[in-house]
């Protein structure tokens, strides 16, 4: 049974009155309606306002095409190349600075303190403004007599710190 027969059989079982009606198209269209329709529609399309998104797309497309013209392509390429080199230079410099800062940050304050005490004398330390005063280490088990004796005997040119260090 083909599709048409199947549809008719189904219809006659469900709705005998509808099935008995002649299946015709009662509607008509004006003469030459379909011949004239494409022109009418295209006319409407051309008169419709262009949405701003389409305008932007067209502008970007034309700008994109323009930079590939020979007279623009060389300067545009040179600018792009200079930009790339510049960006790359700053990136490398920053990453180097970053790595030194990172290494310094990993050193503890005690290690830095020890390094300073070992490698700098008091005069040099005084030259660093804002740094804490060097720690003067005075032996705790010294008596007052021993101390007096020591002060009497050190040379005038030596500072107490030099003598102890």
């Amino acid at each position, binding site marked *: 049974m083909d599709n048409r027969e199947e549809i008719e059989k189904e219809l006659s079982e469900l*709705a005998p009155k509808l099935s008995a009606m002649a299946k015709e*198209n009662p509607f008509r269209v004006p003469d030459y309606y379909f011949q004239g*329709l*494409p022109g009418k529609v295209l006319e*409407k399309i051309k008169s419709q306002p262009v949405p701003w998104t389409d305008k932007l797309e067209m502008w970007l497309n034309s700008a994109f095409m323009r930079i590939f013209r020979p007279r623009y392509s060389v300067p545009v390429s040179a600018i792009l190349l200079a930009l790339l080199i510049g960006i790359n230079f700053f990136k490398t410099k920053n990453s180097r600075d970053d790595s030194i800062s990172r290494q310094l940050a990993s050193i503890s304050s005690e290690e830095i303190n020890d390094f300073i005490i070992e490698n700098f004398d008091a005069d040099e330390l005084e030259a660093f403004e804002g740094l804490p005063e060097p720690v003067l280490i005075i032996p705790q088990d010294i008596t007052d007599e021993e101390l007096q004796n020591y002060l009497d005997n050190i040379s005038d040119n030596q500072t107490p710190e030099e003598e102890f260090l």
Partner: protein
Amino acid sequence: MEISDSQILSAFKDPSTKEEGFKLLMGKYQQRLYWQIRRLVLDHDDADDVLQNVFIKVWNHLGKFQEQSQLFTWLYRIAVNESLTFLSRKKRKGTESLDDEASNLSSKLTADRYFDGDDLQKRLQMAIASLPEKQRQVFLLRYYDEMTYEEMSHLLGTSEGALKASYHFAVKKIEIFLSED
């Protein structure tokens, strides 16, 4: 020989042949779409307005058509959506009751110079117009276009069982409508 959808689409996507491609598309599908719309909105002038809007939408969006479905399926869905939007907008504007609506429809068909049907045909069109949207779509596709349930399922994205049920309901309602005096 009928032009293929892929030929139409490639002509449309090339800016230098876009208009030509669009004319080919209209030539291939305008009648089929017109009749789908006309059977839903009934009046020729309304069908003409809706069809023109459909093709303007097609012009604006065909470039983005993904070709995941058949071109006619895509066009048909736009046409049905546009027709239903038109009908609901029209219904919202009118404030008449259901009885007034039926009598308006009857006099509209009588006055329509592009309607040649007799009284029985007029009653059939009124019966179809009284159906819920989905049943009306299914009835029109099966009764006039003689589509199989499988074809309709692809077109409407609904299961064959559900379509069969919709068609049976629609036919029964129309039969009752035609039997009433």
